[in-house]
């Protein structure tokens, strides 16, 4: 089964940093001028960023970061990332005007069936950004976002969702905003079944729980997964996940998989 995107062009470029702005605790919105990548980009795809100095061989591997917003007119993409380790911390130190070695766009992205008119989005923490690109790119569809985070401070980009006029239902672990508890519990409680598709991105336990709910409801899901990656282009087989079709590469067979094809209990 060879994916269509296997033949699409990839671009490696020195992208210029237009902005790199803190938008939450340890969380940044990075705007890159990268016309070729932008022109080709689709929601659900990601880019591979070299976080260190080019001459430094440590850190060695690129970091995958989802495309959060696509500005085709200006040749810019936005990425939203959270500092969790040294690579993302190095990104946090970059200044406007500096250049970043980036390649992309990578992955299949969210491919929406025509009949999916009403789509529920479910985001956990820093899994939200790719869903924003999805909603932004499909003004013709109806979306509702279920958004879970640890606490109120970690909720980001709420104004951006408001601009898209998309309702956001919030769950926080500590109840500091919205529903107190897991976003999947909120989803189960409020979402009902009047929708055609559920698109999600977030921590694996959230996706596993959500896949169970969808299965019960007989609904389809498109979930964006994460995996440790090396090449980010499908060559090394380092990033596989278990699916009903055997091991599949998260980087190019995904990162978006039909929820029902993933083997969740591994």
């Amino acid at each position, binding site marked *: 089964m060879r994916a269509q995107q*296997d*033949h*699409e*062009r*990839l*671009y*490696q470029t020195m992208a210029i940093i237009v902005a790199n702005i803190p938008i939450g605790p340890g969380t940044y919105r990075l705007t890159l001028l990268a016309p070729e990548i932008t022109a080709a980009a689709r929601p659900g795809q990601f880019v591979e960023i*070299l976080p260190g100095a080019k001459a430094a*061989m*440590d*850190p*060695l*591997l*690129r970091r995958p970061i989802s495309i959060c917003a696509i500005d085709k007119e200006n040749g810019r993409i936005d990425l939203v990332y959270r500092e969790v380790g040294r690579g993302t911390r190095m990104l946090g130190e970059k200044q406007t005007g500096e250049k970043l*070695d980036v*390649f992309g766009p990578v992955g299949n992205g969210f491919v929406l069936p025509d009949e999916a008119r009403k789509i529920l989005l479910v985001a956990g923490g820093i899994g939200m950004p790719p869903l924003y690109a999805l909603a932004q790119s499909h003004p013709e569809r109806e979306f509702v976002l279920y958004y879970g985070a640890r606490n109120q401070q970690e909720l980001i980009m709420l104004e951006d969702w408001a601009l898209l006029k998309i309702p956001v239902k919030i769950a926080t672990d500590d109840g500091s905003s919205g529903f107190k508890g897991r976003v999947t519990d909120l989803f189960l409680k409020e979402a009902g079944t009047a929708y055609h598709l559920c698109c999600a991105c977030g921590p694996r336990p959230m996706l596993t729980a959500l896949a169970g709910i969808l299965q019960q409801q007989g609904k389809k899901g498109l979930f964006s997964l994460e*995996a*440790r*990656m*090396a*090449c*980010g*282009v*499908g*060559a*090394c*087989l*380092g*990033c*596989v*996940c*278990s699916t009903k079709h*055997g*091991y599949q590469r998260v980087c*190019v067979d995904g990162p978006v998989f039909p929820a029902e094809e993933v083997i969740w209990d*591994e």
Partner: protein
Amino acid sequence: MNNPKLQVDFAGISLRTPLVAASGTFGFGREYSRFGPLDDWGAIVGKGLTLRPSQGNPPPRVTETPAGMLNSIGLQNPGVEAFLRDEMPDFASLGLPVLANISGHTVEEYGEIAAKLEGSGIAGIEVNVSCPNVKAGGIVFGTDPKALAAVTRAVRRRTGLPVIVKLSPNVTDVVALAQAAEGEGADGLSMINTLLGMAIDIHTRRPILANTFGGLSGPAIKPVALRMIWQVYRAVKIPILGMGGITCAADAIEFLLAGASAVAVGTGIFHNPGIAKEIREGIQQYIVEKGFASVTQLVGAAHQDGEGKGCGG
């Protein structure tokens, strides 16, 4: 793009540049051709093949380490027959020599895979001996000169293609293994494969790789690779495909000077998919600046007198 100064002959295979894409890091060429033509490469070694399909090890399979990475892919591949049917047509039409990298669980399996590749359009066979011999208690073929000789013999008997034996660095005496391969008629040596390593997640307190151990590659291993190539170059007559941590033209030149006739790049491609162009241009500039007629003049040029002894510490 074609520059006669960069052209090399490796074990009977003619390469337009001395740059080879290393096995397991370049798929069957399709993935990286998405960045543009593969003009800077001299050849591609495909990902490792086994006789039967293999699903490989469970994930996580890769993790970063200081200036390196660990992988435990475990030879996920469709098996040699499906490869020949489904992959070879595209692989063979990339416009440069393509080599097969083969692994077996027994000596016989190596011979069988080699036989199946005959006449397929493959330019040569790279023999990966970093796998355990299931018939000999799991001892890795590539750590025992006798087992390595047996594998080389089995492959040599079944093919007229160039046979390149890929040495494991996880040994006390790499020269003995190189000589074992040479003695059985190998046309060339590839070195080095990965160093066995591991990493632990201090939060889960478990090994990061599902397989516990993985192969260490990337710049971290470059000094070990250079040392082994230096030693083997002095002890054998067959040519060496040098690899292990190459990320720039200066690295590639170091390998040539140490005794490699051509060089392969693996992990460095992940760091920089545009690496081949950078290295090709850098080598070209170097030979012009230093007044060499061709890249072949660099091979082994750092060997001038006896090698050091004594203890490091």
